[in-house]
């Protein structure tokens, strides 16, 4: 089923799949009308979608290295775009992004600009050239371009540090959603999530991950857009929210003026459950300094272009030309969700704070708010909290607190949408977190199995043995990630941003200069990767342990410092050592033109 004409039939296969999924949503909503409980609906949504991914994972099983590492290099442009979008948009994008915008406004929206602008760098600086190179992994490019096992090994180290930081957050997110939807303790739910993730990638490697990611994108985008449009229409805000919410944005501004941002005393805030926040920042006004905004956007953009799990998706296209176009499609599919997140934040905020709307709670009496059904549900889930700080019996803006996740998870219920939508949102969040986790675990396992085991330890290993090693690593890394996730050390979003900073500290300039600067040599690359990563990590530790930092670089943007050190050390060391040999220079020339044979592997 997956061979030969499968590629030609892709639009049909995924068309039927999408129709089937919409049918499933309709069946569930009928079941809800007939009295199916909310809990059963949640279980059905998560179980049904995960079962489909597992089936796709099984059908994509393979014993060929080319299929396992790069999906046979035959993924069409548009479908690779969808797979990349799913690979890219993590549980954090899905569950936490609208919440971040809701609470922090402009300062947070630097992430929207950064996480999309980075794709311009991917398309113009890197993806087509790495595709021409014909590598299996990102360290494969570094190792071959600069030569030597040490460069290869350092690239694997940077990749592992960045991706592992990222993956624990994703497994954590699958665990959170599984524990809510299936109603099991988080410590077990993490492993349920992990097994679902491994089902997609173990048998088919990159091929399995590609086709499940396309399926996961379809689920997550329906699950994100359907509620946004529905809520907007139900509130009478406009049938196409993206173009029609200007009045709502202005109204929020008016209400902010009217209520004012009252600062709570530390004593009052001590009663608020951990992780919940109040509305303290303006919704659409510019509330961050230019450098705070730009530095965060810049760090995310350079990080995007250095994250190996994204880059390796472009190794799977049939050609260099297709790789370029595919980056455009990826960003288009990402744009569909990212441009909707601010709209959801606007709708969610207005529906809660506008006293003239039936759902508005600000200005109502505390007792009245506490008796609302959805308030009780989300208060129990530890995502909502009200307290009468000033003792006037009425809920003020500064007396209402909410968790970031609640914007995506609770808004449908607040707007009075049927529970089937909440089940759908759970399935979407699960899809987003699983697809990213799969991409990351595969990136780490592939780099270690291909670059460390095959290229450094045992270059004579047979394909079958290599693939066994790759799969064992996949499971080991997955379990290591799940174990750390189960300890719940950091929040989801913080560790995601660190991953970008680690990746850009160690990999951005070695990758870019590998293509764009012929003079870059092995010694330079070693210095760039090692010093970049070390100085970035040092800066993070320094700021975290009370250091003051400099130039306004924070723990969220430490990659700017790391990559600057990486650039300087790479250029200086390259220039004081001898230039790369003629064979390497010829290799760079060949990488720069799309035609002709790829540098390594078969075309």
């Amino acid at each position, binding site marked *: 089923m997956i061979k030969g004409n499968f590629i030609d039939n892709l639009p049909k296969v995924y068309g039927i799949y999408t129709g089937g999924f919409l049918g499933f949503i309709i069946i569930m909503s009928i079941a809800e009308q007939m009295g199916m409980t909310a809990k059963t609906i949640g279980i059905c949504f998560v179980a049904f979608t995960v079962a489909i991914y597992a089936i796709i994972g099984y059908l994509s099983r393979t014993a060929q290295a080319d299929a396992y590492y790069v999906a046979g290099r035959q993924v069409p*442009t548009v479908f690779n775009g969808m797979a990349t979008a799913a690979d890219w948009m993590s549980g954090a994008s899905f569950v936490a992004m609208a919440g971040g915008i809701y609470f922090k406004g*402009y300062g947070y*929206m*630097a992430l*929207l*600009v*950064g996480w*999309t*602008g980075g*794709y*311009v*760098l991917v*398309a*113009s*600086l890197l993806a*087509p050239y790495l595709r021409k190179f014909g590598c299996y992994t990102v360290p494969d490019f570094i190792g071959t371009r600069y030569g030597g096992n040490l460069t290869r090994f350092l690239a694997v180290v940077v990749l592992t540090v960045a991706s592992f930081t990222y993956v624990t957050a994703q497994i954590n997110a699958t665990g959170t959603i599984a524990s809510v939807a299936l109603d099991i303790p988080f410590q077990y739910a993490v492993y349920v999530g992990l097994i679902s993730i491994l089902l997609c990638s173990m048998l088919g490697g990159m091929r399995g991950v590609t086709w499940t990611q396309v399926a996961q994108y379809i689920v997550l985008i329906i699950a994100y857009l359907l509620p946004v449009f529905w809520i907007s229409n139900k509130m009478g805000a406009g049938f196409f929210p*993206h*173009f*029609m*919410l*200007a*009045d709502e*944005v*202005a109204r929020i501004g008016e209400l902010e003026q009217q209520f004012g941002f009252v600062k709570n005393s530390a004593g009052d805030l001590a009663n608020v459950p951990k992780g919940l926040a109040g509305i303290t920042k303006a919704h*659409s*006004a*510019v509330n*961050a300094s*230019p450098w705070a*905004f*730009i530095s965060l*956007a*810049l760090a995310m*953009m350079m990080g995007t272009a250095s994250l190996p799990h994204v880059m390796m998706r472009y190794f799977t296209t*049939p*050609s*260099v*030309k*297709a790789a*370029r*176009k595919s*980056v*455009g499609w990826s*960003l*288009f599919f990402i*744009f569909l969700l*990212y*441009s909707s997140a*601010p*709209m959801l934040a606007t709708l969610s905020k207005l529906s809660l704070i506008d006293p003239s709307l039936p759902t508005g709670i600000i200005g109502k009496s505390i007792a009245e708010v506490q008796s609302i059904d959805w308030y009780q549900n989300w208060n129990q889930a530890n995502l909502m909290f009200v307290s009468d700080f000033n003792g006037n019996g009425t809920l003020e803006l500064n007396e209402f607190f909410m968790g970031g996740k609640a914007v995506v998870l609770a808004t449908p219920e607040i707007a009075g949408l049927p529970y089937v939508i909440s089940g759908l949102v759970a399935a979407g969040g699960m899809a987003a977190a699983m697809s990213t986790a799969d991409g990351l675990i595969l990136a780490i396992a592939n780099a270690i199995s291909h670059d460390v085991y095959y290229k450094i330890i045992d270059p004579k290993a047979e394909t079958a043995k290599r693939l066994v090693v790759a799969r064992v690593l996949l499971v080991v890394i997955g379990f290591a990630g799940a174990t750390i996730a189960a300890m719940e050390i950091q929040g989801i979003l913080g560790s995601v941003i660190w991953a970008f900073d680690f990746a850009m500290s160690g990999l951005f300039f070695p990758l870019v200069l590998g293509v764009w600067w012929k003079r870059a040599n092995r010694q330079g690359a070693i210095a760039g990767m090692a010093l970049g990563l070390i100085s970035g990590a040092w800066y993070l530790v320094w700021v975290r342990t009370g250091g003051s930092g400099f130039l306004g670089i924070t723990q969220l943007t430490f990659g700017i410092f790391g990559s600057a050190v990486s650039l300087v050390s790479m250029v200086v060391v390259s220039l004081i050592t001898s230039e790369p040999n003629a064979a390497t220079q010829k290799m760079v*020339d060949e990488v*720069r*033109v*799309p*035609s002709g044979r790829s540098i390594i592997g078969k075309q």
Partner: protein
Amino acid sequence: MSKQEQHWEKTRGLLLMTLAIWFVFSIGIFLFGAEMNEVTGPFGYPLTYWFTCQGSLGIFVILIFWFANRQEKIDEEFGFSERGDD
């Protein structure tokens, strides 16, 4: 200058142009975020707010497709495009 050098020169020119446009909409305009937000942008949103929600994001999508088409033309001009793909 060899054909390959000419090809690379044009490619580099396109890269610089792409990065310049990218710089304007990812960094440049946000230097003036506060001032720009006083202006009403498309669909009635405050202008800076609109750029962070939709404007810059959409421009990046268009920019990548524009870049890909221009690069294909450059590759064809020098006979470096791939045959028999897509």
